[in-house]
């Protein structure tokens, strides 16, 4: 398992460096802007009066942009599930199936490594890589914050990262599970990415249209605190997100244990032939 963990970490090294540095630069820039935004105070509130009410509803935290939690939410945590979601969905959808589709997994599995070790080693590598990216982001908020007026302790800064981490794990494990049941990793990535973006839009739209409120409580992002976790973490929500992620991971592992591995030269499985396709095939044979 450790060999696969190390291998996954090595493979995700570029992603960790790229995402880590990119987000760190962005965060440092945002930290330096906070004192200016906070100083605007009443002026900013006057400005917001001219914003369309739909926009104010969609980005509800914009009203609190001059508070630390509002600022953190609107400039980072609100959309980081979608931004970092690109990384987690892509990484998880190809964590095992990517190698399978390239034919690499055939040779790997001829070595004395169990499917369980292969699966959990790689998943642990992905989880660690995600944690490293978030750790770099967290440090980028914490280290320069003293000079910016963002007067939060390092623990307060850490709190919103925990629900973000849990959400990313949840969507990552969904992508992993779908990659085990859908014909290709690409399809699993597209489906999970679509679900993630749809959920993000639904949450924003539910702030505008109250009829959507009963639906959103069944979606994962409803239980995402974003920057507001600075004021207090909802441990129940966090535990729930982690538990659901664990269930998806176990289901993906169970599926990986029982499925045939495609070897080099084989394509993805096909959907069952539809009646008209079967007839067309029979006509050709005749």
């Amino acid at each position: 398992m450790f060999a696969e963990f190390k291998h996954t970490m090595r493979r995700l090294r570029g992603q960790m460096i790229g995402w880590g540095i990119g987000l760190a630069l962005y965060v440092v820039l945002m930290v330096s802007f906070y004192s200016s935004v906070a100083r605007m105070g009443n002026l900013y509130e006057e400005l917001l009066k001219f914003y369309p009410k739909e926009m104010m509803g969609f980005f509800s935290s914009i009203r609190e942009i001059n508070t630390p939690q509002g600022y953190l939410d609107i400039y980072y945590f609100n959309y980081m599930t979608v931004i970092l979601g690109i990384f987690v969905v892509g990484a998880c959808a190809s964590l095992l199936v990517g190698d399978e589709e390239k034919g690499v997994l055939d040779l790997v599995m001829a070595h004395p490594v169990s499917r369980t070790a292969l699966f959990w080693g790689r998943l642990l590598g992905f989880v660690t890589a995600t944690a490293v990216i978030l750790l770099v982001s967290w440090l980028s908020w914490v280290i320069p914050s003293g000079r910016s007026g963002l007067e939060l302790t390092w623990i307060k800064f850490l709190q919103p990262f925990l629900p973000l981490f849990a959400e990313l794990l949840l969507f990552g494990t969904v992508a992993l599970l779908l990659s085990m049941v859908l014909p290709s990793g690409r399809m699993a990535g597209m489906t999970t990415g679509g679900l993630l973006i749809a959920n993000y839009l639904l949450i924003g739209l539910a702030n505008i249209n109250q009829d959507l409120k009963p639906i959103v409580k069944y979606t994962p992002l409803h239980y995402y605190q974003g920057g507001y976790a600075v004021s207090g973490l909802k441990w129940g929500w966090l535990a729930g997100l982690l538990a659901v992620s664990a269930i998806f991971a176990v289901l993906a592992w169970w599926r990986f244990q029982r499925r045939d591995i495609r070897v080099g030269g084989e394509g993805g499985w096909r959907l069952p032939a539809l009646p008209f396709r079967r007839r067309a095939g029979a006509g050709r044979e005749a």
Partner: protein
Amino acid sequence: MAVRARTGYLPGELALDSNMTVEGALRYFNTLRGNKADWGFVHQLVERLQLDLKPHIKNLSHGNKQKVGVVQALMHRPELLLLDEPTLGLDPLMQHEVYHLLREARADGATVFFSSHIISEVETLAERVAIIRQGVIVEEAEPSQLVSMAIRRVWVRFKEAVDPTSLTEVEGVTLLSKSNNIAVHLQVEGEMDGLIKALAAFPVSDFEIERPSLEEIFLAYYESNDKEED
């Protein structure tokens, strides 16, 4: 798991992680085996196959990728080797080096199973050959046994013109061609005994048996099966 630990495997469609270096890929496979390989032996294999450890897999030619596959299959000195087309894409010199490596593995006590479409390779290396048709073993024997069981072609030259009709009446003998009744080209299925006895009545000046290659035997199996299916 225990069996896989003692087995070396080379797939026919070899695919490696293209972003790794040759050394990275070999070290990764070695880690999967619990770092059991003797790295000195790995270097020996690499040198004998003239493989550079530094380049990335994506920059390697097909032949060099195949060498990586051969090294990873042999590097832990497995007791059982399963190789699908081990010399695919290798130049003749490297093919011979792989033959040497496989003979050495066999001499060290390893059992080597390999599939090949290169019949000369099978003749050179194999102690036993199985012919597989549509996923089923249709024949299994030593290469020499297969050759002796097969159809032979015989050239016979006579001192004077003869009527070869009586030769074609021998069981298993077919006349392929004749030249002014002085020379005949025959095909013999099964034992040669009947033909030799029939030839005793003729003034024979020359006699030559064409030994079939393993390739011809292989093709004969396929052709005969095709006829049966028709």
